[in-house]
């Protein structure tokens, strides 16, 4: 299947971190190509607020900070309440917190700062001292998180107000986890090779361990985590019980995350549906001459998932599915990173652990390069749905409502029972076929009903709606309607 350059510039802008008007400075090429340049970046005297700096470092930090804000603001509304999230992020956090204590690398410090600001439940946060001290962006974050006081962050719990003095304690607890986490990484990395009966056992084991670790770390918020974990396992069981299709395949659908209100836009692609057998995996990577056929593979095939973006590595990441239909994501040493719900899975060119996925998770491949002004330098942001969850939504309600729409057409076009037959005929014309594409109007299709009661597929009528909006000139009856007419109840 072809993932093409269909984006209308500036219009289709996937949800992006920098919605608050802060523009992301272009990601340094060096950063995309690897982490070898770290030392020089860190040695650079930073500009006052990190904006406009050409360092990949700072732009990255900036992004993380913005992500932090957005996520942070979303938190109370529950937008981030996906239950798997917390566990994942926390396990992530455990690994990253320790990593950043170990090496003064960039990719991870900012993540902990991010989780710090949005995940109050996570106790093993790194304090500002663990970050690169010469990075103004980081400094801003610490100011932001600790300096602004509880007033502006009252939605965050006690963790928010932890003073930097906690550093020692936390980094020491971090190094304990470090060892444990390394163990986990090794074990999980073995899974794909084993690819057999033991594989999913290890995966489950891994998940359980992550959760346990989380719990033990979080003595003060353990109840909270327990709750989260229970919810996770509940929902996992639900999805597992109905996920498999008749051929014994599990499926994933990827849809682009689009936000027209944002100034930058991720790569647009047509939704991708892939199916794989349990205990197999499916690679995600850049479109190349070699995998051309994958770009045109039919929906529901097991072909690799490819994107026409240069910030996506050739072998960027992979999806894996265990025998219960639980899907996992792994970064396969990508150079520009794989992000799961805004959290980077591993440093450049390092493999990540397998991360369990849930419906609605947002995966980002790479970061916008050169501001993402060119289509091929845009990151890929996609929302995942698993095991045909998107099709389960077809239910009796949809069918009933569609039937009611039809009978509504009958009701308006007839005066009595005698005219029922005529009414049905009219309804047949009026609500069975779209006059523009000549296809049937069926349940679960997006429809548009005009004030003159004609009905089309929304997709078909949309060009006509937008051409003269808010005036609408009905192609069927030539009635002129005002789509901005006030909506009032007749009392």
């Amino acid at each position, binding site marked *: 299947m072809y993932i093409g350059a269909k984006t209308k510039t500036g219009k289709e802008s996937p949800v992006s971190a920098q919605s608050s008007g802060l523009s992301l400075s272009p990601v340094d090429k060096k950063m995309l190509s690897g982490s070898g340049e770290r030392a020089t970046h860190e040695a650079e005297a930073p500009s006052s607020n990190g904006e406009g700096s050409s360092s990949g470092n700072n732009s990255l930090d900036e992004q993380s900070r913005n992500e932090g804000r957005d996520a942070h603001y979303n938190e109370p509304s529950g937008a981030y309440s996906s239950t798997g999230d917390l566990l994942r992020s926390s396990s992530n956090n455990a690994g990253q917190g320790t990593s950043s204590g170990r090496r003064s690398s960039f990719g991870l410090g900012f993540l902990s700062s991010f989780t710090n600001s949005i995940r109050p439940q996570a106790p093993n946060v790194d304090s500002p001292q663990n970050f690169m001290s010469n990075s103004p962006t980081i400094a801003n974050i610490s100011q932001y998180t600790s300096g602004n006081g509880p007033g502006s962050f009252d939605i965050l719990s006690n963790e928010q107000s932890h003073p930097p003095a906690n550093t020692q304690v936390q980094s020491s607890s971090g190094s304990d986890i470090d060892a444990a986490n390394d163990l986990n990484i090794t074990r999980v990395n073995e899974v794909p090779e084993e690819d057999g009966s033991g594989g999913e056992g290890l995966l489950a084991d891994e998940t359980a361990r992550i959760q346990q670790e989380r719990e033990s770390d979080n003595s003060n918020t353990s109840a909270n985590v327990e709750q989260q974990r229970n919810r996770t396992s509940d929902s996992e069981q639900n999805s597992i019980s109905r996920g498999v299709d008749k051929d014994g395949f599990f499926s994933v659908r990827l849809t682009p995350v689009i936000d027209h209100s944002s100034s930058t836009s991720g790569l647009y692609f047509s939704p991708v549906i892939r199916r794989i057998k349990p205990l197999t995996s499916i690679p995600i990577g850049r479109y190349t001459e070699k995998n051309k056929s994958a770009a045109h593979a039919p929906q529901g095939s097991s072909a690799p998932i490819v994107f026409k973006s240069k910030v996506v590595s050739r072998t960027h990441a992979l999806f894996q599915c265990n025998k219960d239909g639980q899907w996992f994501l792994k970064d396969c040493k990508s150079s520009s990173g794989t992000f799961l719900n805004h959290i980077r899975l591993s440093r450049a060119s390092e493999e990540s652990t397998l991360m369990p996925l849930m419906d609605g998770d947002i995966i980002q491949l790479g970061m916008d390069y050169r501001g993402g002004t060119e289509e091929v330098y845009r990151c890929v942001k996609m929302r995942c749905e698993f095991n045909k969850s998107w099709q389960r939504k077809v239910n009796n309600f949809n069918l009933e409502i569609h039937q009611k729409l039809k009978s509504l057409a009958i009701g308006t076009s007839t005066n009595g029972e005698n005219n029922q037959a005529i009414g049905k005929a009219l309804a047949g014309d009026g609500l069975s076929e779209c006059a*523009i594409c*000549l*296809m049937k109007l069926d349940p679960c299709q997006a429809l548009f009903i005009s004030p003159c009661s004609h009905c089309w597929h929304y997709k078909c009528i949309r060009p006509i709606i937008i051409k003269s909006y808010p005036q609408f000139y009905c*192609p069927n009856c*030539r009635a002129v309607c005002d789509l901005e007419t006030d909506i009032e109840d007749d009392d």
Partner: protein
Amino acid sequence: MAALPKRIIKETERLVSDPVPGITATPSEDNLRYFHVTIEGPSASPYAGGLFKLELYLPDDYPMCAPKVRFLTKIYHPNIDKLGRICLDVLKDNWSPALQIRTILLSIQALLAAPNPDDPLANDVAEDWKKDEQAAIKMAQEWTAKYASTSSQ
């Protein structure tokens, strides 16, 4: 060339399975957007007994814009010029995507039955028509016999 839209396929099928009386439209073999059309002259008009050939082309953005239709057979009509171009509102500003090849051809057939010299395309014909309608109708009949008679084709 891009794949043929389903709408065009559907319309073509329906033109074959449920033809309009007096009108035929068959797609060209090498271009499914190009149709060979024939319209019989309406019986109560000067064009009765004639069989008029037309060509019809569906542009890329059809059905969002009108099909292009042109008479290939010479015809003496105030709204059809020497080149066969047709002055018909639904082919221009009043096109609607809810219209189809079928409805457009019916409109053209109706135009043959009801020439409108007040909104002319062929000015000379329209003037003749307004000056002496009987003579113009006779001329139209002659042209029909000369160029559009079924026996001569």
